[in-house]
């Protein structure tokens, strides 16, 4: 699956959409955890090693993410999937054997990190649309309500998968163009050693973050709604 053919992009986006369903649509069985989806998506993209490195680093760094109440945390799954996709693009690292290839894995990770916030915002928007769908289900007469609920759930799952698949497909495509220009730019060559060193240090930072999590008395509190959402002008908290 390492060719530049569009089917690779479409297949990757569809698989990414399936993994994202674990978030809210079905389960959650924790397939969307970077520790799991990293190696899985890496395997699907033909490079397990890249998936293991990115998944492991992101899992350690964002170990504390929890969907508490109305608060939607940073989307570490999307960061993992985007980073793996870009890092495994053709003419990228084939087996991640040397330093320059590892530096590209870190570069893909650094580019993907801000997109976790974008996906969180997309999730917030999607849940507003869910409210509209819920109102439609609510309007169903009593004698057909059971069927209406079935419809609501099916639409909810389909809508989740479609929006994630489209978002991933768009970002895979747009990111590929940026990646090809950035990853092989001669200007970045002096940074190769530094980025390679980051493969060693990022897990260490993740262990530090995890240490803080285990020492905290209120581990889930950091992602409570009042931390994960912004206050509105009149003072109340809104996601």
């Amino acid at each position: 699956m390492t060719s530049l053919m569009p089917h690779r992009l479409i297949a990757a986006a569809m698989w990414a959409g399936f993994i994202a369903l674990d978030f809210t649509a079905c389960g959650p069985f924790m397939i969307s955890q970077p520790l799991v989806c990293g190696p899985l998506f890496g395997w699907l993209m033909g490079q397990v090693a890249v998936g293991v490195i990115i998944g492991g680093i992101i899992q350690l760094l964002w170990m504390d993410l929890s969907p508490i109440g109305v608060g939607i945390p940073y989307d570490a799954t999307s960061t993992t999937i985007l980073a793996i996709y870009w890092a495994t693009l053709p003419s990228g690292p084939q087996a991640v054997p040397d330093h320059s290839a590892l530096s590209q894995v870190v570069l893909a990770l650094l580019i993907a990190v801000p997109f976790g916030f974008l996906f969180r915002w997309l999730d917030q928007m999607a849940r507003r649309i869910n409210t509209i769908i819920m109102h439609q289900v609510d309007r169903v007469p009593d004698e057909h309500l059971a069927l209406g609920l079935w419809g609501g759930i099916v639409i909810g799952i389909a809508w989740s998968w479609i929006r994630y698949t489209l978002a991933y497909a768009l970002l895979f495509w747009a990111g590929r163009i940026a990646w090809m220009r950035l990853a092989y730019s001669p200007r970045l060559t002096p940074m190769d050693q530094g980025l390679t060193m980051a493969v060693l240090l990022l897990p260490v930072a993740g262990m530090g973050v995890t240490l803080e999590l285990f020492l905290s008395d209120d581990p889930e509190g950091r992602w409570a709604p009042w931390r994960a959402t912004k206050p509105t002008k009149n003072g109340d908290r809104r996601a």
Partner: protein
Amino acid sequence: MIYLAQLETFIRSFFLQALWNYERMQNVGFAFSIEPLLRRACRTKETFYRALRRNTDYFNVHPYFAPLIMGVIFNKERELAESNRTEDPTISVLKNTMGAAFGAVGDHVIWGTWRPFCAIMALCVGLLVGYPSMNGDMSSSIFHLPGATLCAKWWVVGFLSMFNSIHLWLRWRGLQKAVSDGPLVVRWVESLHLQKWAAQIRRVGLLFLFFMVLVYFSHWTRSELLIWMVAVFLGSAILKRWGLSTFVIVYLVCGVSLAMTKLEIHWP
């Protein structure tokens, strides 16, 4: 027959959050999941329609505790259907109260403790099987296909089976107990001593984390590199305690890595 309805509710409960919305949160998922049990509880179509409509009200809980509340509500709905009354305001009060209480328990025990613990366990094992050997031989490490594949298997299978064993047990057993005991199921939950277990698990998790740190650090024997690694480890923990976002920490660490190469400290 109630067993089949329980099984159906159990399966449907996995879709609890499929239509999560800001207005009534998990309401559609809850009504969808409890529907098979409500069919058993209600004798007439009218009572069933009323019960199902009533359960499309606001609801929010940790998803793993939802089947337990469904079992409790099934009991209350059965009582109501067998009485002469048409409405029971205590049902929605009970649903919301239990939702809030079990939501808090689930967030602390499952998200805050059990999931990080399982992740640390899986990472530890993966690190042991796929880390570069002491003599610097990288060929069997996670940086190459055989080591990475072995590590991936441990992570995926190990983490998922360990985490979901408790997840699925909690869902199924919670539903069973709630269907048989009704609101008294809280005594069963109390008897599990979840908070106490969570505290113990966190201590064990801390031990595994230290073990992982030791294994990770022990392979890099160059003193100047080791000092930097310890500094990054402690620095990240302190910055996180001060409330700094992980997002910022990632870029800070990359900045440190670039600075290290300027100081002629390279990958061993």
